[in-house]
């Protein structure tokens, strides 16, 4: 294993984040705060509580998940798309590194960044609403698993994309709607039965439900199912990445 190469890629990617601190950290934190103001204060004054949790607190896990998903995908996809776009990928392809090392470097950096961001948003939420975390270890586990899984997804998108539009289309047309419809801001039990069933096909539901359970011990689906679905998604992404590298899809002529 060429650990020095993994380290080089990881450090390089983290340095890129450092250079763009404003848009990497400040803007997600700002937009989360806006959600609190709008949903927490404005709507929350009408909906008092859900399953014994105040509405403001209830939306915290969903908000963190939303940022986690969009940021993981955005970071990882951009991280690998950019060298493809500028052509600097030649160096990566000509270096004595395996594809797993490349993934480890890029996905590791993107996931690290989202995890840090998730924790910052968690801390920010604490300024607006009272917070309790029933299972901190599980909370962290879901955070890490989700960050890694969606960074992998982002990596796949970054390889598939052949233009900046495609890079943005998936987060915009898939991730954001799924997150909004996945119970970020409500419990899916408030939906009519038919829509509840439909919603269960949305993978984000399981992520949010499991994550929320780690906070408040309330969940739309059982934790075991949440965990299982998250793992399933992770394995699917891993398999796709494995296939990409085996075939050289969109990387090599």
């Amino acid at each position: 294993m060429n650990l020095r190469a993994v380290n080089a890629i990881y450090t390089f990617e983290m340095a890129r984040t450092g250079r763009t601190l404003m848009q990497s950290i400040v803007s997600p934190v700002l937009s989360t705060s806006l959600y609190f103001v709008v949903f927490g204060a404005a709507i929350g004054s009408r909906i008092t509580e859900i399953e014994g949790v105040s509405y403001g607190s209830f939306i915290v896990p969903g908000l963190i998940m939303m940022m986690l998903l969009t940021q993981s995908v955005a970071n990882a996809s951009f991280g690998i798309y950019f060298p493809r776009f500028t052509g600097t990928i030649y160096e990566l392809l000509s270096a004595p590194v395996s594809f797993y090392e490349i993934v480890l470097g890029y996905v590791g950096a993107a996931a690290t960044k989202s995890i840090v961001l998730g924790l910052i948003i968690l801390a920010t939420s604490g300024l607006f609403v009272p917070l309790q975390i029933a299972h901190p270890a599980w909370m962290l586990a879901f955070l890490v698993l989700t960050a890694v899984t969606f960074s992998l997804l982002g990596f796949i998108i970054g390889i598939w994309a052949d233009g900046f539009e495609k890079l943005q289309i998936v987060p915009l047309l898939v991730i954001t709607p799924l997150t909004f419809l996945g119970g970020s801001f409500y419990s899916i039990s408030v939906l009519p039965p038919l829509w509840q069933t439909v919603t269960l096909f949305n993978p984000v539901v399981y992520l949010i439900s499991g994550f929320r359970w780690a906070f408040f011990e309330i969940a739309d689906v059982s934790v075991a199912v949440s965990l299982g679905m998250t793992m399933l998604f992770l394995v699917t992404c891993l398999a796709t990445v494995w296939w990409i590298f085996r075939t050289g899809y969109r990387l090599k002529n």
Partner: protein
Amino acid sequence: MSSIISVRDLSKTYASGFQALKSIDLDIRRGEIFALLGPNGAGKTTLISIVCGIVNPSEGAVMVDGHDIVTDYRAARAMIGLVPQELTTDAFETVWATVSFSRGLFGKKKNPAHIAKVLKDLSLLDKKDDMIRTLSGGMKRRVLIAKALSHEPRILFLDEPTAGVDVELRKDMWDIVRSLRASGVTIILTTHYIEEAEEMADRIGIINNGEIILVEDKAELMRKLGQKQLKLELKKKLDAVPGELAAHRLTLNGDGSELIYTYDTQGERTGITALLDDLNRTGIGFRDLHTTQSSLEDIFVGLVRQGK
């Protein structure tokens, strides 16, 4: 085994269906400077890209110092430094960061002293903290060379390193190439400046339409294919080549003031003595004479034309 790279039966057909390489066989000797010449689109970059792992071969095999580039890619690639044809750099990195990154990527332990030396040799040291996008094109080219040298490769590929480069950098670069060669590094370069190949290379390969049409020691090539011309400045202009001299296949220049005799340096006899004797006999006097040798460029153009 004296060859450090051996290419066997290598073919490449791009996804578009275009066949860029047609069953190439090529051996690069350890420690030599090998110049790959060929017109635009001949397949030079494709060949280099396959050896370096950037393009997948369609058929055939490449061994780098005994390591197969596919099954044993780590060992093969660790030996190779590549300076690509295109100026592709990370715009927002500093020179120092990007060169250090390359070293790490190739699995080498950090060595700031080495990086500093490479930058110094390329006159980049005072730019080390500058962002790459603020550098000029020639400076970016230097950065690419520095990246390739950062990990102390044993084989260096230079894909048209002097395209768009000023005299100064060209000189710097050839100094570096010579000192690398002195330390045992094998260098493969492509260039359109034929004088460069003529000046730098030990051996020359010519590629055209995806086929290697010739590989030869430079000196041998020059000797074998080199033709010389003997030009005689006449005392009196002539209207036509006199019949008595027809056997020598002479030509007359435009205004009839020079007789030109073309001969092969390779031939047993040049035929010059016989020519001069005959001239004497016919009483054609000449004021001066000089010879010119055809350059590699003439040879190259001749060969490529033949191929078409």
